[in-house]
Structures are given as C-alpha cells and as structure tokens.
C-alpha cells in the first residue's frame, strides 16, 4: 500500500503500520485532557451543541459540496462522540449498560479524512449561537490523530526539518541564507540604486526578523519591501542565523511540536539580546508568535507583525512615498490567522488606502473573510490541490472575480501560494497575488529615505 492510497494526502509508510490505534488514540486523548485546557470546552460543547446547522451556511466548503460530512458541527461531532463515550461519566455508564459506539480503526480513518477537509479558519464560530469553536476541535483532533502518526507527510517533513534537520522548514542552510540576502541587496542596488543591508546576527537590535522562511525562496519582492521599510525608517533589526523561520506547522497538527518551535523563537531572540519579534508577511507565523507568552510567560518578547510596524511608521510620517500611487485596482485578502479574531485588519487597509488610487474591498471581509482555501497547513499538501482550489477555493475565486482587481494583496506566505493556485485553476490568470510590502516597495521614495 503506498502512502496515499488510504487518505487523500500522503502519510509516511510507518503510519500505515501502526497497530492498536483506537487504544493509542484514547491514551493520547486521556493524556491531553489531563495536561491541557481542552477538557472544559469539550465538556460544555457536548452538553449544549444544538445541531442547528447555522455553521453549514458559514462554511465555504459546505457551500460548494453540500455534503453532510462538510458541516462543521457534523465534523466536530466525530470528536465529541469519542469524548462523550470515553471521558464522561454518563457516556461510560451508558456504554456499560447498553453498549453502543466503540472507537474503531475505520472511525479513525473517517476522522483522518474529515479533519483535513477543514482549514480551521474558524469562520463558523462567528455564526454558532452556542459559541462552539469548531476550529478548536479541528486543531485538537489533528493533534490526537498525530499521536497515532496520522499526519500529512508534507507537514511532518517540514517540522522534522525545522526541529531535527537544518533548522527551518525549507531546509535552507545558513550559507544559502547569506547568499540570498546578498542577492537581495544587489537587486535593491540594481533596481532602486540604494544601498540597503540585511543585518545578520546583530546583537541588541530592537527587532529580530522572522518571516516565513519560504519567502527567501519565493518572495524576493516582499523581503525587499521589508528591508526598504526598515531602511527608510531607520529601524533597528536583525536576522538571526540561529533561527530565521517564523513558520510553525505545529499549529496545524501538534501542540507538542508547536511548543518546541515557539520556544526556539524565544531562544534566538535571547541569544541575540533582541527586544521584539518582527514577524514577516505570514498569518500563521504571527499567530504562532502570539503564543510566546504562553510558553515564556510575561517575560516573552513582544510580537509585532511587519504590517503593524509599517503602518505605525507610515502614520508617523516616517515612510516617504512617491507622488505616483499604484493605479491598478487592488483588493485585500484577510489571512484568517490574523484577522478572524480581529487582531490585524485595519493596518494593512490604512497602508493600501495611502498607496493605491483604486483600492476595493472583497465582500465579506475582515473577521468574516473567507479563507484562501489552503488554511490549516493544507496549502502545503500538493496532492490535494484539486480539492483546495476546487470546492475549498471556489468561494474565494468568486470573491476575487467580483472585485475586478488586478492585484490581490495577501500578506501571508501560505495564502499567497494558495491564492495563486486558486487563480490559475479558476480562470483568473490576469490577477496577480502579491504581498503588501511588494506594493510598498514600488511606492516608497527611497531617495528621500534615510
């Protein structure tokens, strides 16, 4: 049996040979309930779930497929049923008296499929009258599945590389990072005739910069924009060669991995005697970094997203702009991980309004945005591209089409990759998906800069 024949996504060979999975799953569940704070919501959700299906109307996947298994509440029930049966007194008693549900291999396979058909975008939480956070259930269910080795290979390999390999998810060695930074500096010199440095391993800098490491391979314009903003504002920043990856796929499948990756971020900031974490254009990297106080307490370095930094500087008049604005129509995609809870929605809009003459909103937007369709790490799973850009991405494609925009600004490495594929697969070839700093780079007056 190859790694894909069982699920829509590849898993490692070893995952298909795990025996006694129901027992192991329940042992993991018991351990997680004992040491985490997940027990309380599960207890309450199992009691009050009203099965009203308002979540179905909110879910972009269900809107496309109309399949029962894609109703968020239906998916969550897969895990709640196990909790009710094995971890509540009434469930245990009922099972003793009347039998009923027993966790099986087939049931775990159904979960394995279902919880990776959800991007954990948490849009449905906004519409649940009972306040059930289905994204939380997906998050937890994926962790429990990971403990019986059900993990999409793409996510597993990335985390392995980050924690046991080269030290980052794209396996970029330090030498290659230095080469890339030099290349970017040369590009800035050639294209903009300005001498901008990517400061490596500077001790005592205010900001330690952690973009999605894949930006060093794929998003040169974004990184040049980041450097340009730091240059004109005179920002004190550095890139640490001990850890230069903001990506944290632990968020998508295992709190155990997440904890280790976040701690590594804090360690690098300490090593460099930096004061703050400056996260690049990446939604989940930002949300992961917001967990720094969880693992490092009140002493954790504050987290600033590069868009927050850029807006604070622009607002203070420290970013000189050319007179010519961006004239093509521009729209903005809210990455779920920074926008759903309303934490970063206005700063990018303020910047775009300042630098674009034809900025339009997608509808709906901000906290009610639709996911790009590749959230929850599913964007990295190349073998499910048809699913991501088809039923999962259709709603987003419709949204983009309705704006008539030439540029879709997506300040997130994962959203960028996914949206490019969505556009390719949905007849939106004329649309260009770019970062916010890509546009900023076009309009910053570097000659007037510092």
């Amino acid at each position, binding site marked *: 049996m190859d790694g894909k024949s069982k699920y829509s996504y590849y898993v490692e060979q070893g995952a298909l040979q795990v025996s006694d999975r129901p027992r192991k799953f329940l*042992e993991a569940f018991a351990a997680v309930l004992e040491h985490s704070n997940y027990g*309380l919501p599960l207890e309450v959700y199992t009691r009050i779930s009203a099965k009203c299906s308002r979540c179905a109307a909110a879910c972009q996947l269900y809107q496309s497929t109309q399949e029962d298994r894609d109703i968020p509440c*239906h998916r969550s029930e897969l895990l709640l049923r196990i909790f009710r049966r094995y971890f509540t007194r009434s469930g245990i008693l009922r099972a003793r008296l009347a039998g009923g549900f027993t966790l099986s291999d087939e049931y775990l396979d159904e979960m394995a499929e279902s919880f990776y058909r959800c991007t954990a975008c948490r849009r449905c939480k906004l519409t649940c009258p009972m306040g059930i956070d289905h994204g939380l259930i997906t998050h937890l269910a994926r962790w429990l599945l990971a403990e019986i080795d059900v993990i999409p290979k793409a996510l597993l390999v990335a985390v392995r590389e980050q924690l046991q390999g080269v030290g980052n998810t794209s396996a970029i060695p330090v030498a290659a990072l230095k080469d890339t930074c030099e290349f970017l500096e040369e590009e800035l010199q050639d294209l903009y005739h300005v001498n901008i440095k990517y400061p490596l391993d500077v001790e005592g800098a205010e900001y330690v910069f952690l973009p999605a490491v894949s930006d060093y391979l794929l998003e040169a314009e974004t990184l040049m924009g980041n450097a340009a903003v730091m240059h004109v504002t005179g920002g004190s920043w550095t890139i640490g060669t001990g850890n230069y990856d903001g990506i944290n796929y632990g968020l998508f499948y295992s709190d155990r991995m997440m*904890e280790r990756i976040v701690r590594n971020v804090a360690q690098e900031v300490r090593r460099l005697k930096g004061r703050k974490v400056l996260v690049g254009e990446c939604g989940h990297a930002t949300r992961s970094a917001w967990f720094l106080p969880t693992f490092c307490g009140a002493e954790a370095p504050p987290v600033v997203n590069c868009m927050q930094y850029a807006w604070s500087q622009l607002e203070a008049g420290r970013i000189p702009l050319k007179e010519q604005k961006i004239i093509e129509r521009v729209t903005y995609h809210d990455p779920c991980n920074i926008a759903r809870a309303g934490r970063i929605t206005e700063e990018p809009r303020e910047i775009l309004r300042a630098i674009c003459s034809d900025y339009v909103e997608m509808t709906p937007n901000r906290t009610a945005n639709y996911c790009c369709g590749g959230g929850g790490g599913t964007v990295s799973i190349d073998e499910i591209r048809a699913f991501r850009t088809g039923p999962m991405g259709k709603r987003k494609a419709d949204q983009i089409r309705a704006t008539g925009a030439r540029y879709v600004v997506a300040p997130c490495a994962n959203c960028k990759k996914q949206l490019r594929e969505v556009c390719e697969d949905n007849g939106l070839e004329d649309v260009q998906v770019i970062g916010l700093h890509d546009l900023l780079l076009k309009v910053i007056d570097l000659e007037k800069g510092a």
Partner: protein
Amino acid sequence: MEQWLEWARGPAFIFSFIFMILGLARHLVLTVWEVAVAWRRAGDKTIPWRQIAVVTLKWMFPAGRIGQQPLFSLTSIAFHAAILIVPLFLAGHIALWFRGAGVSWPAIPNGLADVLTIVAVVTAVALVLQRVAARSTRALSRFQDYALPLAIAVPFASGFMVMHPAFNPFSFDAVLFVHVMSANIVMVLIPVTKLAHMALVPGVQLISEMAWHWPPDAGSKVAVALGKEGARI
C-alpha cells in the same frame, strides 16, 4: 384526579424545580471552577475580557444576527423570548409563588401572555418543521432535537387551554394536570439535556477562549505521559 393534581402541583413540582435549580447551579459552579483552574494553569493569562463580553452580549441579544438566516433566526428568537417571559411573568404563576412562598414581582398583562403563549407553541412547531425541511439540519439532528421543542410546547398549549376554558374540550383538571406535569418534566430535562445551554451559554465564549490559553508545558507533559519525550519526529 384531584389527588393526582395535588401531587403534581405539590411534591412533583417541588422536586422538579429544585432538581432544575440544583442541576443548573452544579453546571455553573463546576464551569466557573474549571475556568479558574484553566486560567491558573494558562501560560498566557491575558484574556481579552472586553471582546469576550461584547460577543457574549451580542449572542444574548442576537437581533444583529437575524440577517444571516432570517426565518430561522426570527423563529428562534421569538421562541426563546416567549418561553422565558410567560412562565416567569404570568400573573397566575406569580400569584402561586406569592401564595406558596410569599414572594411577588410585576406581571405582564394576560393578553400579552396569551399572544406569547401562542407564539411559543407556533414557533416550537416551526422550529421542528424547519429542522426537518433543511437538509443540513436534518443530517445533524438527534431524537432530542425534535423532541425537546415539542415537549416544551406541551405546557404552553395546555396552559393556554387552562386559561381559556372555551378552547378546552377536555376536563379542566385533566388539562391542568398535563400542564403542570409537562412543565415538571421539562424542568427535569433542563440540566440533563442540551437545554442546559440556558446556564452555560453565557460563559461559552470565555470557555472557548480559555481553551487556547494553554499550560506552558502541556505538550512536554503529554510527551512524557506517552513515553515520547526525546523521540525522533
């Protein structure tokens, strides 16, 4: 019948009422305790209280949410308003409380109570019909999802007949017995079914938020418990 009625209005009512109150109080106390435990264990103790309060209040008074699914939302809101207001503020009920316990509070006019009672019965049936009619709701529904609205409609329908003998083809005592006993049954069901949401929903936004506030070493401890510390990834 008179003895049965006395039993329903006496010991059966007292039992049901106390069962409901203690059951809901138990949910509340345990939940508050668990939230406190979760907060104590959390690595990040910064809770967005204001945001949680705003979202909670918006769901307590969900007029702003009607636009999303107008028919279902209006039916549900009318249902909840009616079944909360009538039992608590009917003049006849308040008179019984005054006679039995010496407490009293303002009542709503009987005419309004009549209207709300009809609303309660009609919306209860409408909720069930909408549940059957919508494909997604039908896929999710369990027996209790159909049975509970109808069970709640019984004391309202019978109560209306008690108040309006002209609409009552049965004996007064029999219908009064049905009214009191069906209400007793609903009160017993409240803490042990999804109706417990009447006590738990005000806290659920906070509970969901707390779940994301992890203990700093939860992952490490789970690794130890599963014998996976130091294991290759």
